[in-house]
């Protein structure tokens, strides 16, 4: 697969503060790449450097294998932090301006307004828009040049649940078109739902990167319950059990590699115990994320 973005040793110092430290990243065509990290971990600074608004202190990066330049930026649609537009211009006029800068076909404007469902309000001034509409206009402006890559930084920040769902739908639709998307967020649930790959930043350093599908792999955690007084003791005799913990009314069994919930069920059945509750807990990205961050604190 073609490498779209390659980052090597990218560093940014603000005085004594090192906002981004020796960052290495690769994003390939067609990926939906999630950048995770707590607030202030250097996500926006990194994207700012990639988009030419922040001057890097050291390191280099390339888009499509070429050195960065303003011509290449025209092939990327990006919204960093909150939406930025001229408040006194209408949505339509703002997009016209974006299209002129990007030297994009003005015919795209009507199309992208349709995608983000703003056609009805396009002639109203930007300053009259609600936050959700502003975010949607920002996505429209990123799409106006029909870019190969889309960069979205906290696109659902400050939105209500409906707005979040809408933006997520838009992102999924765009991803389905085969576009590469880089999505910075601290909402783990969001990244797990829409991304194919992810990287975790902490204090400007890359602490983990890999495919989202890998998150659920590895040891399983099975929650189990049955009407039996010595259930805990019996569970501990199960060869597939690494550890047994009481969680609420149920027991949480950390499974050894290669053992699954059905093995546990069979074991109990053979002992003459019928389970009343059995559930496999997939490890969520949230758990993984907190583990990664905790590991790196040591």
């Amino acid at each position: 697969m073609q490498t779209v973005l390659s980052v090597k040793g990218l560093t940014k110092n603000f005085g004594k503060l090192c906002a981004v430290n020796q960052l290495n990243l690769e994003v390939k065509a067609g990926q939906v790449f999630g950048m995770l990290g707590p607030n202030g971990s250097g996500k926006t600074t990194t994207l700012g450097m990639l988009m030419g608004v922040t001057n890097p202190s050291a390191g280099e990066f390339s888009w499509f294998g070429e050195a960065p330049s303003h011509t290449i930026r025209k092939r990327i649609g990006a919204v960093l932090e909150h939406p930025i537009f001229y408040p006194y211009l209408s949505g339509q006029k703002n997009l016209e301006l974006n299209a002129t800068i990007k030297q994009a076909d003005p015919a795209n404007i009507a199309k992208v307004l349709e995608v983000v469902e703003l056609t009805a309000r396009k002639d109203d001034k930007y300053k009259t828009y609600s936050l959700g509409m502003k975010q949607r206009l920002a996505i429209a402006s990123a799409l106006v040049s029909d870019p190969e890559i889309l960069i979205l930084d906290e696109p659902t920040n400050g939105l209500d649940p409906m707005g979040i769902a809408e933006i997520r739908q838009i992102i999924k639709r765009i991803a389905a078109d085969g576009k590469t998307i880089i999505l910075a967020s601290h909402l783990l649930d969001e990244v797990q739902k829409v991304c194919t790959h992810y990287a975790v930043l902490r204090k400007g350093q890359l602490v983990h990167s890999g495919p989202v599908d890998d998150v659920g792999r590895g040891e399983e955690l099975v929650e189990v319950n049955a009407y039996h007084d010595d259930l805990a003791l019996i569970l501990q005799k199960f060869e597939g059990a690494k550890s047994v913990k009481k969680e609420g009314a149920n027991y949480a069994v950390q499974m050894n590699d290669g053992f699954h919930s059905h093995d546990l069920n069979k074991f109990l059945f053979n002992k003459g115990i019928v389970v009343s509750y059995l559930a496999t807990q997939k490890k969520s990205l949230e758990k993984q994320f907190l583990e990664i961050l905790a590991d790196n604190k040591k």
Partner: protein
Amino acid sequence: MLHLLTIDLKKLTSYRTFWVVVGLYFITLGFTTASGMEFLKWLASKGAEFGSVIKINRIPLYHFPDIWQNLIYISGFFKLILAFMVVISVTNEFTYRTIRQNIIDGLSRTEFLLSKIFTNVLLSVLSCVMIFLIVMVTGLIYTPDLELSYLFTDIGFLGAYFLEIFAFLSYTLMLGLLIQRSGLTIVILSLSFMIEFIIKANIDDYVAWAIPFFPMESISNLVAIPFPRYVFQEIQDYVSISSVAIVLCWTVAFNYLSYLKLKKSDL
């Protein structure tokens, strides 16, 4: 070039403040320069009430070729209004942070600066066109025995006027980029002449030769005050090459400093 000018004009032409300020500028400029004769007539009629006779036709304010220097000298005072518009236009980009989005969208920092400089050129050209038309119309009306050879003899002042406006707007653009806040920029811009005056007054006795090299001083020197000639005093009735050279250097310096500032900063 046209592409960059279009970008900046798109930002301005739907902006009500732009039309108010620029409209105010051209209306004031037009009225003031065109109404000099009417003012003299009013002065004469007032004078007549007190028994003194002013023969206004003896004052060749609007006669070719004097008219060029007379009107252009007066016009120079209004450039501050135009400069306010430049301040608003450039500081808006920082308050709305749109400069950041412009760069993200694929404008280079140099292109961003050029789009502002081209607008400055356009505003300077429009001022020149305005003054040219007013000189032509009022000159043809008020010059008694018109000799065509005199019509364009002093048109060189129009070139100096262009440089005067453009140099001042370049200075304004640089201040706006450095300060980034409209209020403070307007205050410093308005005080520039005074600050320079205080400095000049203090070094007058030691390094008098340096005074023509001051930026505001050199811009004012492009078109010298013409009116003392009507009370039989010697005036500088030409555009001196040295002041053109000094102002050109300042103009390049202002725009180059803007470029350096923009190149280095994190937006």
